[in-house]
C-alpha cells in the first residue's frame, strides 16, 4: 500500500527564521504516527504544509496519493492547534455545517452530528450554543468536527492540550478507535509520553529538522539504555561496592531514592555484551535488593540524547529536560 503522506526536502522560512528545513518523511498508510518535539520545533508548520494551508518554499509532497491536500481535503480530518467554534452557533448545527463543508450530504450530516455527540457523552448539549460549553466539551466537539466525515487520514495537532485526565483518556480511546478502524493518524504533541503511550511510529523534529523517524519498537531496540535501577536492602554503599566487582557492570551510580534520601538508590549501567535478564539475576544474587528494575527506553531521553549528540553535548541534559517536560508528569516511564 502506498504511503499516506510523503514529503521530500520540504523547506519553509518565515522572514529570517527557518521553520522547517529539508524535511523528508514517509508516513505509511494505517499507521498511528506521533510527531514530537519541543514548542517551536516546526510541528505545526509541517502539518500546515501537509494540509496545504501554507505552502513550502521548496520541496515536494504528496498526500493520499495526490500532489496537494487540496485535492483530497474531504478525505482528511484535521484538528488544528489553533481551534475554535462559532460562539453563537448551536453545537449540532456547527457539526452539521462542518460535515457538509467536508462533503457529507446534507441529510446525513445532522444524523452523524447527533450520533457523535451521543458517543462522547454530549447528547444533551446538541441544542446549546457553543459558547455555553466548558473547555473540555468544546475540545470534544472540535474532535468530532475532524472525524465526522470519516476521513482516511486524520491529522491532530496538539490534541491533548488543555484536557483533564478523564478527557485525556477518552481522547486516547477515540484516537485508538480511529486507528483500529484502519485510518492513518498523524498527531503532534510536545508531551512525549503521550506519543509513547499511543503511537506505533515516531517522528521527532527539532529546530525544523527531522532527528528521528522510526517505529516505536525499533526505537526501543536502538536506544535500549541497558540500565538497571536497584534499591538495596541494607547499606547502599556496601551494595554498590559489591556490584562494581561484577564483570557485566560498567558503572554504578548512587542517586536519591523515591524516599528522597540521597544515595538510597543505585543506577547500574551494563557493559555492551551483557544480557539484561542474566544481569538482573546476577545483581540480585550479588546483594540483597528491595527492588530491581530494568529501565525501558523513554522518548524524552532518546530525544535529549539525539539533540545533545548533535549539539556536541554542549547543552546540559537537565536544561533540556526542564524545558520540555510538562510539570505534572513523571520524567521516566519505568
Amino acid at each position, binding site marked *: 500500500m502506498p504511503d499516506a503522506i510523503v514529503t521530500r526536502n520540504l523547506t519553509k522560512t518565515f522572514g529570517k527564521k527557518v521553520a522547517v528545513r529539508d524535511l523528508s518523511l514517509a508516513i505509511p498508510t494505517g499507521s498511528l504516527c506521533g510527531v514530537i518535539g519541543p514548542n517551536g520545533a516546526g510541528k505545526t508548520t509541517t502539518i*500546515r504544509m501537509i*494540509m496545504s*494551508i*501554507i505552502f513550502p518554499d521548496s520541496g515536494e509532497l504528496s498526500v493520499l496519493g495526490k500532489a496537494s491536500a*487540496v485535492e483530497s*481535503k*474531504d478525505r*482528511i*480530518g*484535521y*484538528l*488544528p*492547534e*489553533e*481551534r*475554535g*467554534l*462559532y*460562539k*453563537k*452557533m448551536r453545537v449540532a448545527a456547527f457539526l452539521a*455545517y*462542518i460535515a*457538509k*463543508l*467536508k462533503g457529507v450530504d446534507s441529510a446525513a450530516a445532522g444524523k452523524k452530528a447527533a450520533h457523535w455527540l451521543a458517543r462522547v457523552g454530549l447528547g444533551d448539549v446538541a441544542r446549546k450554543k457553543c459558547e455555553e460549553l466548558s473547555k473540555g466539551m468544546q475540545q470534544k466537539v*472540535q474532535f468530532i*468536527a*475532524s472525524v465526522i466525515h470519516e476521513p482516511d487520514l486524520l491529522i491532530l495537532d496538539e490534541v491533548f492540550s488543555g484536557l483533564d485526565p478523564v478527557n485525556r483518556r477518552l481522547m486516547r480511546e477515540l484516537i485508538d478507535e480511529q486507528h483500529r478502524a484502519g485510518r492513518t493518524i498523524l498527531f503532534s504533541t510536545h508531551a512525549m509520553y503521550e506519543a509513547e503511550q499511543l503511537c506505533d511510529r515516531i517522528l521527532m523534529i527539532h529546530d525544523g529538522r527531522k532527528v528521528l523517524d522510526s517505529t516505536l519498537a525499533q526505537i526501543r531496540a536502538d536506544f535500549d539504555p541497558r540500565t538497571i535501577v536497584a534499591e538495596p536492602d541494607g547499606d547502599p554503599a556496601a551494595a554498590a561496592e559489591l556490584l562494581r566487582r561484577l564483570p557485566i557492570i560498567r558503572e554504578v551510580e548512587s542517586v536519591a531514592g523515591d524516599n528522597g534520601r540521597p544515595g538510597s538508590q543505585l543506577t547500574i549501567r551494563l557493559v555492551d555484551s551483557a544480557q539484561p535478564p542474566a544481569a538482573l539475576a546476577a545483581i540480585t544474587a550479588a546483594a540483597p535488593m528491595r527492588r530491581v528494575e530494568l529501565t525501558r527506553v523513554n522518548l524524552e531521553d532518546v530525544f535529549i540524547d539525539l539533540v545533545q549528540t548533535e549539539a556536541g553535548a554542549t547543552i546540559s541534559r537537565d536544561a533540556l529536560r526542564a524545558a520540555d517536560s510538562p510539570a505534572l508528569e513523571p520524567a521516566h516511564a519505568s
Partner: protein
Amino acid sequence: MLRKTLFVAWREFSSTVFTKGFLLGVLMMPVIAAIAIGGAALTDRLKGPRVSGSIAVIDRAGGVAPGISARFSKDALKAEKDKAAEAMAAEAKRQAEKFGLPPEQVQAAPAIAAKVVDNAMADADISIDVLAPDADAEIEKIPLATADARQNSDTPVDVRPRLALAVIPPGAIAKGADGEYATFDLFTAPKLDFQIKLRIERKISEAVIDARVQNDPALRASGHTAESIRELMKRPEARVASITATGEKKDLGVGQIFLPMAFMGLLLMSVMTGGQLLLTSTVEEKSSRVMEVLLSAVSPVQLMLGKIVGQMTVSLLMLAMYSGVGVAGLVAFSFMHILDPKLLIYMFIFFFISFFTIASLLAAVGSAVSEMREAQTLQTPIIFLIMIPWLLVLPISRAPNAAYSVALSFVPIINPFVMMIRLTGSEPPPFWQIPVAIAIGLATVVFSVWAAAKVFRIGVLMYGKPPNIRTLIKWVRMA
C-alpha cells in the same frame, strides 16, 4: 467547489438574518417610522394653550395705542386666525397641484391645512390696558412677575393677569437726529407661551409701523396707507417649470434633491451594513480560532467568496425591503410619477458593483487583523473613500453633467454612487456614460476581489501584531 461556497454563503446569511437583533432591527424600522409619522400628525391635532390676560401699553409716542387695541380685539384675533387658515389652505392646494396629486387629494388638502392652523394657533383672550403716557415703567413692570397666563378667562377684567408691558418711546414713530427709528420695549410675564409672545411682538410692531405711516406727511399726501404699502411689498411667486425635449416638465422643487439623497442613502446604507457585518464576522472567525478548522474544509478563496455572497444576500434583502417600503410609500401618496422604474434597475446594478468592491476590501481588512479594535485603523481609508459621495450629492445633483460630475463617474470605488446621483438628478447623463461607468465598476470588482483574495489567503492565519497598509500591499504583490 461551488457547493462549498454556497454552504458558507448560507451560513453567513442565516447566522446574520435569523437573529433577534436583525429581525427586530429590520422589521421594527418601518413600525418605528410609522409611529414617528403618526406621532407628528398627533401633535398637530393638539390645541395650543389657551391664554387670557392683559397687555399694558405706555404710549409715550402717541397714536400707537389705538392700533394695538384694535389688533387685539376679539374680532381682529378671529379674523387673523381665519386669514391664516385661508392662506395655509391656499398654499396646501398650490403645493398639492405642484406635485401633481390626483384631484381628490387636491380637494382635501385645504381643509386639512385649515384644521392644522386652527389647532396650532392658541386661543387668546387678551385685553389692552392703555396706561398714562407718563406712567412709571418700573412700577408697571412689577405685576408681570406674578402673572399666571393660564388663569381662567372668567376672572373679572381688573384682576386679570398682566402678560406684557409695552413701552413705546416717541422715537419709535419719528426719526431721531441720526435718521433712525428707535426701538420699543416689550416686557413679558415668565412662562408666557412663545408663540403668544411672538404674536404680541408682531402686532405691536405692526401698530408702530401704522403709526409711522400716519406720521409721515409725504405718504399721507400720496394717499398710501400702511395696508396698501404692505400689499405692494408682497413678494411675487413664480410658477417654475423646466423645458425639456418632451415639453414642459413641472419642477419638483424639494423632490429634485430628495430623490438623489434617497437613492444614495439606500445604496450607501446597504453596502456599508453588509460590509461591516462581513468585517465583523471575519474578525470573529479569526479571534474565535474557528478559521483554521474552516480552512481544513474549504480554500481561503472559497471561504471569502462564500462570505461575500452571504452578506450580499443580507444587504440585498435589506435594500429590497427598504426600497419596497419607499416605492409603496410613493404609490400610497400617488408620488410614483416622480420615480422612473429604470432607476431601480440601475440601483441594483450599482449595488452589486459597489458591494463586491467594498465588501472584498473589508473582508481583506478583517482577515488581516485578530481583533475588531485593530480593524478600525485599517478600515478608516475605505470608510473615508465612500463618504466622499455624500459630500458630493448636492453639487452633483445640481450639475449632473458638469465636467467634475462626469470625471467622478469614472473614478473607481466611488463611481457607482456618483452615477446613482447623476441618474436621479435633474438632467440624465448621456447614455454612453452609463455602460462605461458599469464597465469601470466591473473592472474594479475583479481587481479588488483578486487583491482581497491574496491578502485573505495570507492574513487568515496571521496572528499577533496587526499589519499596516504597506504590509497589505506587499501581500497583494506576493505571488
